[in-house]
């Protein structure tokens, strides 16, 4: 009853092309954002540290991959490596210019990923489909090798690992050992909201149309005057920007440090799974996918022991991990069979039904 289109007339083109045409949707979005900020003050540290911050980070990476694979149709298996480029770039910038506010460096490090992404995207003019996927594997393995073999990237430190130095914003520590989950969460939340807004603007405008045109039928798109190489490179660049920032956030505002192995091929696949399950070509799907794939093992880790303990059985953390792989793998197959457009489509269908509820149509 509450959710209705009735009475909401659009009187100009600007209103007609709004991203959230229904007032109820806009109110809903506002409430979610308010609730997200409120969570910083009422949520407990475990929730923020182990669930919310990584959920946001992976959502951002998924948005990045979605732009490339979902909107533009270029399958990429190099996401992990592009995230890594952002993280290492951020590290070098932060340590070289410690006076500059670290948030600036986080946001700028994405540009390094963007450049590398565009470079590895050059072959996409000639190479398509799964051949391109294999080409992105070259990026993944080569960049991963660079992370290990170029000690300059970690400022020649002995451990070979990245670590988060102490950094502050307006006097409060936001990075490093003294930063609380609450402050880190607020920083990550704000960055993710900002970047999601920018991504949404892009995909709903002329550039999003170009990307989708290339995905749907690149020959026809070329006929419209859309230049395929520029459009694909832009997709690689923007996508890698998002992945790079996500990588920097992952290392410095979540883990607090990382070894090169964090950005391995499993990472690439898991982000891809988030995009597939969440919905290819849907920004909100990126959030759904990240939620499902990331939160799943946490839920498993709580629910499973709870179910088994009455029987005196227990499960180790490694078993949970194995089950996670199995469930994710099975979910991918399930979604591809049942709803290839992922959770986002299910969400859309749900909203359509809600629009006319309690009537069937």
């Amino acid at each position, binding site marked *: 009853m509450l959710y209705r289109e009735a009475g909401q007339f659009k009187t100009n*083109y*600007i209103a007609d092309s709004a991203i959230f045409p229904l007032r109820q949707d806009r109110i809903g979005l506002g409430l979610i954002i308010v609730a997200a900020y409120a969570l910083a003050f009422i949520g407990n540290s475990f929730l923020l540290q182990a669930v919310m911050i990584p959920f946001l980070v992976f959502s951002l990476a998924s948005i990045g991959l979605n732009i490339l694979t979902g909107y533009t149709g270029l399958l990429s298996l190099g996401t992990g490596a592009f995230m890594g480029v952002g993280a290492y770039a951020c590290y070098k910038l932060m340590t070289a210019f410690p006076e500059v506010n670290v948030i600036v460096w986080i946001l700028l490090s994405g540009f390094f990923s963007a450049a590398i992404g565009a470079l590895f995207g050059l072959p996409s003019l000639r190479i398509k489909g799964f051949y391109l996927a294999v080409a992105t594997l070259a990026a993944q393995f080569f960049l991963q090798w660079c992370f290990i073999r170029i000690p300059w990237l970690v400022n020649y430190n002995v451990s070979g690992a990245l670590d988060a130095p102490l950094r502050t914003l307006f006097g409060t520590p936001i990075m490093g050992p003294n930063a609380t989950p609450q402050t880190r969460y607020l920083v990550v939340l704000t960055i993710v909201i900002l970047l999601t807004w920018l991504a949404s603007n892009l995909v709903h405008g*002329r*550039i999003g*149309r170009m990307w989708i045109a290339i995905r*749907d039928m690149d020959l026809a798109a*070329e006929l*419209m005057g859309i230049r395929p190489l520029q459009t694909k490179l832009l997709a690689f660049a923007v996508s890698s920007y998002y992945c790079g920032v996500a990588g920097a956030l992952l290392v410095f505002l979540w883990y607090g440090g990382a070894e090169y192995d964090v950005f391995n091929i499993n990472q690439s696949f898991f982000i891809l799974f988030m995009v597939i399950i969440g919905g290819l070509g849907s920004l909100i799907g990126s959030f759904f996918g990240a939620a499902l794939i990331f939160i799943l093992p946490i839920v498993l880790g709580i629910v499973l022991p709870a179910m088994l303990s009455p029987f005196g059985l227990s499960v180790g953390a490694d078993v949970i991990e194995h089950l996670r792989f199995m469930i994710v793998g099975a979910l991918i197959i399930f979604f591809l069979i049942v709803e290839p457009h992922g959770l986002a489509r299910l969400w859309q269908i749900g909203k359509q039904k809600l629009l006319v509820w309690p009537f069937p149509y």
Partner: protein
Amino acid sequence: MRAPDNPVFAKGDVLLAVDNVSLGFGGVKALTDVSFDIRKSEIRAIIGPNGAGKTSMLNCINGFYYPTEGRITFKGVKRPKMRPHEAARGGIARTFQNVALFKSMSTLDNIMAGRSIKMRSNFFWQLFRHGPAMKEEVAHRRFVEEIIDFLEIQHIRKTPVGKLPYGLQKRVELGRALAMEPELLLLDEPMAGMNLEEKEDMSRFILEVNQQYGTTIALIEHDMGVVMDLSDRVVVLEYGRKIADGTPQVVKSDQRVIDAYLGVAH
């Protein structure tokens, strides 16, 4: 003396000239030594039995294939190796036999996609959506809505085109081509698979586009009635060669054309 960059072509001047064009794929010759021209603001039909090379000819004109011999001159400029997006920017638009729409997009978005070459707003403003980007979007939206009104497809504006019946899809595709404001419009069997009513509508649109905007049209068509009614001049191809060229009346009574269609042994 160099020709001016954008010369003005008067009705009747040659807009596109095809000179001794041959096209081969491996051992197969799709076109052999074909020559004809298309004059500004005319409706030129390209007809012929199946496999005559008509679609290949259009593909050469708009840059998908490069002729193996001969050359194509558009607006007075020779175009040896023109890529499709250059053809588009030069003023050539095209529809396809098997509708080449962006299936996941709505009618409106498909036609807006046709405005791509006219859109200038850069990446920076696109990031913010409201502002110069939105102004441009609205301006183009106005133009696209005129096309939608013209083609009488208001009711399917927001429908994803994959869900539309074939006849409507072809109309949307025409709309997308018109959005490019082309000088030369290539239509590949625009009436295929349509019933009588739909054909009449489509013929009306084609005529109006030609008469109202002066758009030059080259069309491939099988329906002889349509060809006779619509076109100013006709080119007939058979097995990749030109066998007739002239007004519909002349071509209709050409013995070689009759033989080709009736399949008389050579």
